[in-house]
């Protein structure tokens, strides 16, 4: 990995609980108080040690009205670059916009991320579900699994799958349950002989093992009896390869909270499930809980961003989402080929008998994650 060249893109190791403790130590209780209070003159007066009259005077002197500029207009269009000022920023912005860039691509944030940012701001949960005060909030980006050789596809960008906001006192298993991946939803097996009775058993119901790999520790999901330790092979490999040079350790995922973690922000870690579906995860941000955050504990891990998938269309009608995928199909032009349920059955079967030679697998489209959130 190119650690040397991009050393600035991740922070030194941070202990999450340590950060919380330090914050509690340095900040006032009121700074971490999770509710907004109205700015009253009395509180000002008490805090500043002056009379209420002076506070009122200060309020008038420092009011928002003083920041109103002569050129500012209520009906001004935010998209237009104002003219008639000497501000360098605006001049450069104008020049930039005139060069007709692809603004949508160049922005750091997506539309969804902005919409989600404060979507739950006004949620008023029952008191027992309120987020505990003085808790840390972590933002975790989960990327698409990539089996491509990274050396070959160096320039290719990793695509973000989802981004979650988790609370410091939540367990790693909470995040593991929240992460959605199409590999969890696939139906295993070949059903070309009996397409009508496909069981609704998803991969996540059968293969429940998973692990996080963070700072040389495997956090295994062993909540269920039939779960296996997926990290076993890797650990054995490590032991054989670097004998005596330290080894990877394991922990149970459900025993560990985010507060217990030592992490480097911005550093890539691993989430592996379904045997070999490996997602890169990155802790983007660590901060204290803010009054404008979602206050309902039950809604965390909160999805703040996700990739918009393109659905796979039926190759016959080009209208419906694909539900079947066939391989080595004599009736199709390509392999694999995608069909919706109706077209698949109409094309391949007559009186419930196969008309040609092919393999058919139920296909679960990534588009199922596109269901609007909020």
């Amino acid at each position, binding site marked *: 990995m190119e650690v040397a060249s991009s050393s600035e893109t991740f922070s030194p190791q941070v202990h999450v609980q340590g950060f919380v403790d330090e914050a509690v130590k340095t900040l006032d209780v009121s700074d971490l108080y999770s509710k907004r*209070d109205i700015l009253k003159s009395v509180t000002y007066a008490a805090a500043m040690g002056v009379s209420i009259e002076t506070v009122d005077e200060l309020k008038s002197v420092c009011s928002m009205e003083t920041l*109103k500029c002569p050129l500012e207009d209520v009906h001004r269009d935010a998209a237009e670059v104002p003219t008639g000022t000497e501000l360098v920023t605006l001049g450069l912005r104008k020049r930039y916009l005139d060069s007709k860039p692809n603004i949508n691509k160049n922005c750091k944030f997506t539309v969804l991320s902005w919409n989600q940012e404060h979507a739950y701001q006004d949620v008023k949960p029952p008191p027992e579900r309120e987020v505990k005060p003085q808790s840390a909030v972590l933002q975790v980006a989960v990327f698409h699994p990539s089996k491509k050789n990274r050396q070959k596809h160096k320039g290719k960008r990793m695509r973000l799958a989802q981004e979650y906001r988790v609370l410091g006192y939540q367990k790693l298993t909470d995040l593991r349950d929240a992460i959605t991946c199409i590999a969890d939803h696939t139906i295993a097996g070949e059903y070309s002989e009996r397409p009508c009775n496909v069981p609704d058993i998803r991969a996540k119901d059968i293969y429940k093992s998973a692990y996080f790999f963070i700072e040389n520790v495997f956090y295994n999901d062993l909540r269920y009896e039939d779960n296996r330790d997926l990290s076993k092979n890797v650990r054995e490999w490590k032991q054989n390869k670097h004998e005596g040079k330290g080894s990877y350790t394991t922990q149970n995922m459900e025993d560990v909270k985010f507060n217990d973690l030592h992490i480097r922000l911005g550093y890539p870690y691993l989430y592996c499930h379904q045997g070999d579906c490996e997602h890169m995860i990155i802790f983007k941000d660590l901060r204290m809980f803010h009054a404008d955050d979602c206050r309902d504990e039950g809604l965390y891990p909160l999805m703040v961003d996700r990739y918009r998938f393109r659905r796979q269309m039926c190759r016959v009608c080009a209208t419906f989402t694909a539900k079947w995928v066939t391989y080595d199909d004599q009736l199709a032009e390509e392999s694999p080929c995608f069909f919706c349920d109706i077209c698949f059955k109409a094309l391949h079967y007559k009186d419930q008998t196969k008309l040609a030679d092919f393999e058919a697998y139920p296909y679960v489209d990534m588009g199922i994650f596109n269901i609007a959130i909020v």
Partner: protein
Amino acid sequence: MRSKGVMSGAVGLRTDCERLLQLFTETNSVRYEQFSALWRQTNFSLIHYGRKEARQQREFIEGAFQIVLNFLLPPYSFQVRVGALYLLYGLYYTQLNKPKVKIRMTLKTWCELVVFHQEVTEQQHLDVDFVFRTLRMDKAFLFTATPTQLIFGKKEKLPDDEDRENDQLKEQQSILPQVLGESLEQLQDIHEKYHNMKCELGGGGRPDPSLEVVKTGIAESIAEKIHKYEEWRKSTKGRTRGRKRPASEDESTMDEGLVESRKRASRIAQIKGKSYGTFAKVPRSIRYMQQETTTSDEDEEWLPSTSRKKGKGKKKIIQARTKKTPPRCKSPTQKIREETRRLIASAIQPTASSSEEVPPKKKPTPKKRPTPKKGKKKTKPKIKVKIEAEKRGKREAKKKDGRKRQKTSESHGEGTSSMSDSPKKAPRKSPKSTGRKARKKRA
């Protein structure tokens, strides 16, 4: 793409903030009234405009907070820090985002800010105190572990760097005058000496007309041409060109002495030799057309005059060569380079024909020109014009009046098409004709 992405951030804001803070320090006070007056005077609230979507505004304001927070920290004077606090207050409350984007504050920065606040309260600056308390009680701060969100591999440039890069963009200057400046002076000196000698020869105040072989005021004309080129460069995107060069820039500015100037001259010669010595790879499909390189011709131009005067046969060969080689598309830089070269060449190698500088248009041009690509390019606009002319014709035909108008419009259309064609042909002719002239001069 990446550099453009950088442009979308809070570029230029640092300069604006510096200006505002400069003005604020000039007032020699820390009163909020002064600051708000300056704010209004500079129309600072408008800084948020020009961004359509909320996410772009968010990107901007986050960068802006980053920049302003720099001014809040100790190396700056107390007054600047107060100004920065006011600026933060102003930016936070005038931002267009709803709900407001919070100010990311690391615990370390916060500690320093608290110390600063204590200082303020001790000195009884009530307005500063009030502004700080308002921000704090209004939950404007987000207490974070790092100044920005981090993602491995995505190297986010600090807004600071962006600005600096941008400054370079603004101050970007051509090094042409620097490179040519002294040599032009030298040329001027030599020219004056030459002129004086001619005068002495003639005996009178003016040199003999038979000796008038060099255009007077070469240096000025070169300077003028450089100036023209500069203007052209400013009007178009000359950014990449400017960026490639600065290595030689500082080299050329350092020296003063004669020895060093000689060194530089040799270095320039090297650079020139490199740039003219290498030629672009020609696709295999048209390689046969370039049996003999074009550069050989150009190089010969630079040879001392003695070698070229020999024999007429050589001239013919050169002409034959140039006929074979496909005419290259010439950028303004190239043109100017060529012209300056021609001028210098004419100065070095005085000929009788140099007096007729202005190119007469009537000169016949060789008809054979193997340029399949150019032909295509040329035909396109023709069709367009014709279509337009047709459209125009139809439009006008609809205007009730029958055939007469249609006819006139058609004829008009044809006229325009021919008109529009002519200027496209002209630039193709010109380099050739000038080349020819140069060749003639040599003869």
